């Protein structure tokens, strides 16, 4: 597990990753903005620092078929979220070197059709049999149809004892 790095050392190490544009500290959580991130270089840096990959979030874009991809690393005392975006609907796979990336990438491929070239086992993880990739992509890009204000009585009535 990670050595207890000083926040300044950690920030400097993150800024040195190729493609990183900025590092922001928001109440102890670090947000790294890196649209052109070199993901393998990020994985190597995090492995050197002893910081584990927690999970990967994908947010599909409606307009161009791309997606924002956020790598959430955890050093036990804080979460470090590295935000990048796909290029031609793909990002290099981290799974050959990072086991925790394997299921996360397979799930994102199933749900949003983001490709991860180099994945050692790119078979469906949670996609139902007979359904194409991008199970949720279109529906997630569509604006919410039920965007009303909350009307639950619990939201306005005093707490019960």
């Amino acid at each position, binding site marked *: 597990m990670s050595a207890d790095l000083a926040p300044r050392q950690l920030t400097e190490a993150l800024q040195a990753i190729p493609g990183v544009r900025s590092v922001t500290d928001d109440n102890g959580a670090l947000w790294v903005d890196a649209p052109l991130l070199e993901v393998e270089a990020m994985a190597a840096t995090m492995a050197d620092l002893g910081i*584990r990959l927690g*999970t990967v*979030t994908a947010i599909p874009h409606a307009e161009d078929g791309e997606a924002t991809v956020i790598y959430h690393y*955890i050093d036990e*005392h804080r979460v470090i*979220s590295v935000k990048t975006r796909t290029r031609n609907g793909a990002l290099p796979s981290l799974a050959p070197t990072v086991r925790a990336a394997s299921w996360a990438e397979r799930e994102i491929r199933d749900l949003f059709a983001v490709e991860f070239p180099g994945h050692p086992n790119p078979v469906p*993880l949670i996609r139902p049999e007979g359904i194409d990739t991008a199970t949720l992509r279109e529906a*997630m890009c569509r604006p*919410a149809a039920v965007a009303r204000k909350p009307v639950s009585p619990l939201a306005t009535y005093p707490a019960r004892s």
Partner: protein
Amino acid sequence: MPYSFPLGPYHPALEEPFKVKVQCRGEVIDSATVEVGFSFRGIELLAQKRNWVEVITLIERVCGICSNTHAMTFCMAAETIAGIEIPKRAAHIRTIIAELERLHSHLLWAGVGAEDIGFHSLFMEVFSLRELVMDTLEAISGNRVNYGMNCIGGVHRDIPDPMRYLPALDALSKGLAEIVIPTFTENPTALARTRGVGRLSREQAVEWAVVGPVARASGLDIDVRKDQPYLSYAALGFESVTRPEGDVLARVVVRALEMVESIRLIREALLSLPAGPLRATEGLPEIPVGEATIRTEAPRGEAFYYVASEGGATPARVKIRTPSFVNIPAIEAMVTGQPLADLSIIQASVDPCISCTDR
């Protein structure tokens, strides 16, 4: 001659549908592949189509065992985006419910584990103890599964008479100390089925990035309650439990000792319940544009939420990474080289929650 054996997706040894496909040589497992996805409901998508109050109800149904963890973690994410600090009394009540949930989850696991090794009388003992926890949860929240305690900014219900629950905790402590812990750690039948079985070394635990009791049973001292304290854990003085052996017995012992610590935390929280309001705000606050990542320690380990808001009536994105999602793949490492007959208890020792994993 090598042969393959499918356990699941539906099998008496599994509580929920998932599949462990093993390749065997004689009695010994050569390799394994885990398959999930049989309970996929698309909850992350549905969460974007409901308003902030409805999402709490939806998220509470990610899992039927750690339901409170999910609703609580989601509320904590919304509170972080909105810059809300919940009142101390609400934090204590959330802690009490979270630890009661851990108790009932660990007791459920202990009962299932006992059943998986054919120890039916232990199953009955464990489940009668679990009823004490379920009764307590029902008395506080009115519910046995989805407690509906959390709202953005605090909790819905008070605990007006905290002393009322102390006798149940005493009875639970006694049952754990006199029956459950000695039986799992001293009974020859239980030891024969758990000691040295399904090892996951410390190095493997790091490699597979496991969390929760599975990680702590392999010597990794990681626990969100200690590493990044939230709610009232810092004030109550939490101590984590680890074991170095990495086998099924170590996972049993970690969960058993965690239950003792949970009872202590609940008792301390009940005795020191601060006066004050249950919510930071009346009604639902506006959730402004922003994003937050939140970690909490669910019964099975670290639950991780990423929530984004565009300032609208619904969340813009809710990403849920449950502890089982990272623990279940490690079953492949645990069962390799083990007898086929131990497959059932090894996969059960992870306490896999498929409903959580598939969402």
